[in-house]
């Protein structure tokens, strides 16, 4: 019986991490449903981007208020994880505050965890107010109704609860240290929780131990719960921001990749020695589908983008189409891509590892044509994203599908393209008149 808590803890740890690992595997499988793309270049530049953008939070602070608050929560999250390491070792070995022999270093660490925990609570309260009381425009857009809204609030509640439990645990510990309770060695410095400690005055040592143990177990249990909540939440960004910034686009934002399948055909067309009546070789692969109508047509980095999106809406708030009341919201493009990808993933799970046609696709069932055609390709969304997500590339790939596979461009664009084809300009002017301006008076 003596080892019962250790055993329970070990089981909790194995299940907590095991279930998470299972979902990570699924996540990886879903992302790799996307098409291949070569991102093996410029490794040092990519590491640099990751260090700067994800680790260094450089794009977060473009908006100073939310940026600063985010940095607090982020630093809190990373630093307080050192404490989680101690909790795990204690849990497995049945020790108490195993890092305590570090002495003054330990005091300093615990003190900084406490201050950070307090700051995290403050930041989270500010975040909650911005969403629920101030109702900032980007948090109440149509795509944020329902689960996305409650998901955001749940994350905030969980964070407050975890920090609250951490401080309660320390406060009770501090009281027990002062009472001289067995096993509660003098260790740590409690600049924040010392203000909670007086609440325990007059309680017996055993009641305070009960409070301390309850807070300790709920805290670590909560952390395992939160870890597993990630996969079902927009909060995955705390992990995926790192690979996503690593694989982020390194080319100028205006450079859209040239479709290789098209290049081959155009070259053939322009080759005077090509046989116009040649039949394709019998073993020739069927030509690639042009553009994207579903998630499998996108590149895997675009699917990673979708899982990384934390729905902050900075893209949407900078989007000229969205600002002027059009349906397009770059954030919704990312959310739709993820939702459809999850649907495809569930389909694969239910059908023993094989996708069975479900009569749905990303185009029309999730993203409407009206949204796609409202884009000005201005790159404001790409610039705004703090974690290098590129919603524009998905919009452009879907336009390619509409135009090249379906001939479904708006009529005016068909007229424009007809003009380019016939007379080399988007307007119906004769190419032979191209230099007329030089003869006109200024």
């Amino acid at each position, binding site marked *: 019986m003596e080892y019962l808590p250790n055993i329970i803890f070990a089981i909790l740890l194995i299940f907590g991490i095991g279930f998470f690992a299972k979902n990570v595997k699924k996540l990886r499988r879903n992302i790799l449903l996307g098409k291949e793309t070569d991102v093996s270049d410029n490794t040092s530049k990519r590491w640099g981007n990751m260090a700067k953008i994800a680790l260094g939070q450089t794009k977060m602070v473009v908006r100073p208020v939310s940026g600063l608050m985010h940095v607090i929560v982020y630093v809190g999250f990373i630093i307080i994880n050192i404490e989680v390491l101690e909790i795990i070792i204690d849990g497995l070995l049945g020790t108490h505050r195993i890092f305590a022999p570090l002495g003054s270093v330990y005091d300093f660490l615990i003190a900084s965890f406490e201050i950070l925990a307090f700051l995290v609570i403050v930041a989270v309260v500010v975040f909650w107010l911005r969403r629920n009381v101030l109702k900032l425009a980007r948090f109440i857009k149509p795509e944020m109704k329902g689960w996305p809204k409650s998901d955001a609030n749940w994350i905030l509640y969980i964070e407050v609860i975890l920090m609250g439990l951490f401080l309660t645990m320390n406060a009770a510990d501090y009281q027990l240290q002062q009472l001289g309770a067995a096993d509660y060695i003098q260790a740590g410095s409690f600049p924040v929780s010392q203000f909670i400690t007086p609440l325990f005055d007059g309680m017996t040592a055993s009641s305070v131990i009960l409070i301390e143990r309850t807070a300790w177990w709920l805290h670590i249990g909560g952390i395992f719960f939160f870890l597993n909540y990630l996969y079902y939440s927009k909060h995955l960004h705390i992990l995926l921001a790192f690979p996503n910034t690593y694989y982020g686009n390194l*080319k*100028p*934002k*205006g*450079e*859209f990749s*040239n*479709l290789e399948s*098209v*290049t081959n*055909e*155009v*070259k053939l*067309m*322009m080759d005077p020695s090509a046989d116009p009546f040649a039949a394709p070789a019998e073993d020739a692969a069927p030509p690639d589908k*042009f*553009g994207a109508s579903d998630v499998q047509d996108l590149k895997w980095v675009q699917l990673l983008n979708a899982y990384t999106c934390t729905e902050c809406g900075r893209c949407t708030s*900078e989007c*000229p*189409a969205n*600002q*002027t*009341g*059009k*349906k397009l919201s770059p954030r919704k493009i990312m959310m739709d891509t993820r939702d459809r990808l999850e649907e495809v993933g569930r389909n694969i799970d239910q059908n023993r590892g094989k996708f069975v046609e479900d009569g749905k696709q990303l185009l029309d069932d999730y993203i409407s044509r*009206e949204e796609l055609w*409202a*884009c*000005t*390709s*201005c*790159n*404001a969304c790409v*610039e705004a994203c703090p974690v290098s997500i590129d919603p524009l590339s998905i919009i452009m790939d879907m*336009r*390619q*599908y*509409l*135009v*090249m596979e379906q001939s479904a*461009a*708006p009529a*005016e*664009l068909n007229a*424009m*393209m007809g003009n*380019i*084809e016939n007379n*080399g*300009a*988007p*307007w119906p*002017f004769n*190419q*032979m008149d*191209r230099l*007329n*301006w*030089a003869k006109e008076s*200024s």
Partner: protein
Amino acid sequence: MNVPTMASLFAEGKQPEVLFWVGCAGSFDDRAKKITKAFVKLLNNAGVSFAVLGTEESCSGDPAKRAGNEFLFQMQAMTNIEIMNGYGIKKVVTACPHCFNTIKNEYPGLGGTYEVVHHTQFLKELVDEGKISLEGGTYKGKRITYHDPCYLGRANNVYEAPRELIKKLDAELVEMKNCKSRGLCCGAGGAQMFKEAEKGDKEVNIERTEQALEIKPEIIAAACPFCNTMMTDGVKNKEKEASVAVMDIAELLARAQDL
């Protein structure tokens, strides 16, 4: 106006230093043609050895590509590349950020690699080299705001050359609340120029014009023929055309030199 073509120079066995890629707007649009002429005057005045493709030039393919027609884009690109490579062109300057972006970034993968500069960058070089002198003070103290074209700014990180030229005019450069990397689009990009906007509660160019008028400029400087059209329409919509002019950077420089 002295506008040599590549064909005529080639016939004389000459090779210009730079190809001026005029673009469709610069060739056909009445407003944009004025920008083209202003730029040519500046080139001639600075003694730059340049030529245009004239009737051999064709659409860069940008609007086709942004509309999703990769096929048409690559047809255009490869035809243009064949002509430019045929003339052995090394350097290209253009007053259209869309042509600039496409030729600079998307042509190399199709076999067309050139040094491509935007006309504001080229003019900045000429000023720095002393080939254009900006004296006279036509714009001294005037409030000028600069609208960043998306395909010059965000797309290619060119923010400073046009601004430095405005400062060289001794003008007071005032910035809109959204500028540089956070500049708001004029509404024409992504082939929107050629279609009606989707349903919404406002036109993008009106939103952008309001941002410009908020800071009470005398001149809205543009560096893209499409932005120019959108901002001009916006100013007209707000009935401010009598007090606020929309001008290209090249036009400002040409007028400052009395060209």
